[in-house]
């Protein structure tokens, strides 16, 4: 076990992967100085400017060029800086990267990790705060990873770099500094949720930083005798449908909680899949952002957050 921050865990994994495989390289704006959140600190010094490549402010080209380089046999880690800016490279990701292997009849692969930090962080307002993970779940060809802990950011970064598929890798900006114990030998299975808390009274399904919020809510609830099973999905495609169903079959109750907009969100997919396959003791509950825009003033921002209180209240109402 090693103590690492959430950002440091991904950095450690990336560094190890680059040491092990000369085909792995990273590219993005400002990487030469360690990246805007320090996620690349020290890599330029160790691996040089070709493998830790600065890029012009050309998101379409960062994504498109990395894809071209992936098709000829390199394994790029693409930094988009903020998930919001990755929208400037939407054609490259959705129309090109996600489809090339299929469209060309299996002739090509796009082994890429596409890092797109998400989430509300320090009054960043509408263009620097979005959680758009469900957009990518809706795109066949992509894997979608949303780690919530240092352990997962270590193991999942390794797994993402090793994957031959394009992986949209969405770290939450608010938890870069979160510390935790990391078991560097622990395996990681795609599409297998992590249990953050055991319990049989209600199943709470979440991911990214909201999974941490849900875990805190479950702690509060345990003091009141309500035992929640908190499942952190960790990857949204593939996602642990079987694990969620097994849990809900025990608890009979389901809450999904996520930071992104609830309307049309992935929580709705989880709820729909559960009610298609089993019966519940109470109507399921979706907790997500209202379909509103992320503001700047903190009190306004708070109006959109899914909080410990909201999750605990939903569980209480459901269990009594």
């Amino acid at each position, binding site marked *: 076990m090693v103590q690492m921050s959430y950002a440091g865990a991904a950095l450690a994994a990336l560094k190890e992967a680059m040491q092990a495989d000369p085909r792995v390289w990273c590219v993005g704006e400002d990487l030469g100085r360690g990246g805007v959140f320090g996620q690349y600190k020290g890599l330029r010094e160790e691996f040089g400017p070709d493998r830790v490549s600065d890029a012009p402010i050309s998101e379409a080209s960062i994504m498109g*060029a990395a894809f071209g380089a*992936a098709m000829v046999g390199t394994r790029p880690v693409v930094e988009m800086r903020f998930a919001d800016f990755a929208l400037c490279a939407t054609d490259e990701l959705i129309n090109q990267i996600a489809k090339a292997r299929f469209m060309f009849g299996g002739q090509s692969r796009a082994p890429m990790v596409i890092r797109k930090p998400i989430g509300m962080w320090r009054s960043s307002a509408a263009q620097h705060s979005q959680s758009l993970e469900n957009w990518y779940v809706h795109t066949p060809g992509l894997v979608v990873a949303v780690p919530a802990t240092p352990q997962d950011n270590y193991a999942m970064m390794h797994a993402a770099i090793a994957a031959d598929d394009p992986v949209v890798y969405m770290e939450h900006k608010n938890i870069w500094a979160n510390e935790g114990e990391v078991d560097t030998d622990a395996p990681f299975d795609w599409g297998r949720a992590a249990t953050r808390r055991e319990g049989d009274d209600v199943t709470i399904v979440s991911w990214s930083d909201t999974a941490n919020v849900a875990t805190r809510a479950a702690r509060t609830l345990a003091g009141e005798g309500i035992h929640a099973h908190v499942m952190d999905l960790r990857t949204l495609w593939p996602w642990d449908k079987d694990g969620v169903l097994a849990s809900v079959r025990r608890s009979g109750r389901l809450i999904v909680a996520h930071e992104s907009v609830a309307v049309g969100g992935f929580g709705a997919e989880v709820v729909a899949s559960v009610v298609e396959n089993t019966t519940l003791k109470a109507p399921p509950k979706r907790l997500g952002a209202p379909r509103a825009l992320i503001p700047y003033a903190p009190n306004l921002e708070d109006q959109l957050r899914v909080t410990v209180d909201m999750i605990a209240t939903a569980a209480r109402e459901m269990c009594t």
Partner: protein
Amino acid sequence: MTATNYDIARGTALVTMMERIRAFEQVAELAATRDQLVLGAIHLSIGQEACAAGVMHALRRDDLILSTHRGHGHTLAKGADPTAMMRELLGRKGGSCGGKGGSMHIADFGVGMLGANGVVSANITIGAGAAHGIKLLGDDRIVVDIFGDGAINRGPFLEGLNWAQVFDLPVLFVCEDNEWSATTRTSDMTGGAGAAARAQSMGLYTVEVDGNDAEAVADIAQDLVSRIRDTRTPAFLHARTYRQGGHTYFDPATYRPQGEAETRTASDDPIARQREALLAAGLGVADLDRIRDAARAEMDAALQTAADTPFPSDDTVFADVQDIGSPEEVAY
């Protein structure tokens, strides 16, 4: 072309390739209109064959190319198998992409053809990236990235050219300028002096060529390819040509001034010009007709074989999407 050092072998190779491209597309058009066998839209490059034949002649088999929706000629000239291509147009098993891509997505990685593209301009950044990958891997291949005149008005043109320039990448960008973007005259929608001026402004070594002169294209491409292979820096070729037909095979192109296409075709057809050059160099009409007939027979046979090939099996719709979370295991 009466110069004594005229390279008859190359001239013949160029006319042969152009005849094969034209025959492929004429047969494909018949397969679409007469036989109703082509399933989706096809974009023909009739009248633009010199660019494909001349540029590809300068490449090695292991060099890479990327093309557009109008890419049959480039693909054939890079060495792809016309039967596999025809099967792809008909959506059949054994097509270049297993019937999953169709005309606009033909790729043949075996001959270094990394894909046509259904999105205008998108191949520009991807081609720069293929060259970036080659640079990282440290080998001596080069990339040729071809697009139309309309593509220069999308962002990837700026981003991709700049990328190639700042990273010193071994890529030749070719703007195959047929004057038209679908139903719009490109000059009406383009500010400034156009493709070459834009490339030059970003520092790329830039050359313009009469894109209907196969010999000139081949000469210049040879120079540019050698230059790129030696210096490992990008270059830009603006080749002026003309789209003799409609945007798609079913477009009558009535938006063009009356007589424009007819006049241009009669005066400036690249195959007719290359035949003239070879006649002047001493080949006979019968020799040239034999080349034409052989090309047509080859493509007729390709269509026959394709038409006799079954559609792909239904379950291939789930194959080659992704390994992790594959629809072969989880489609819902």
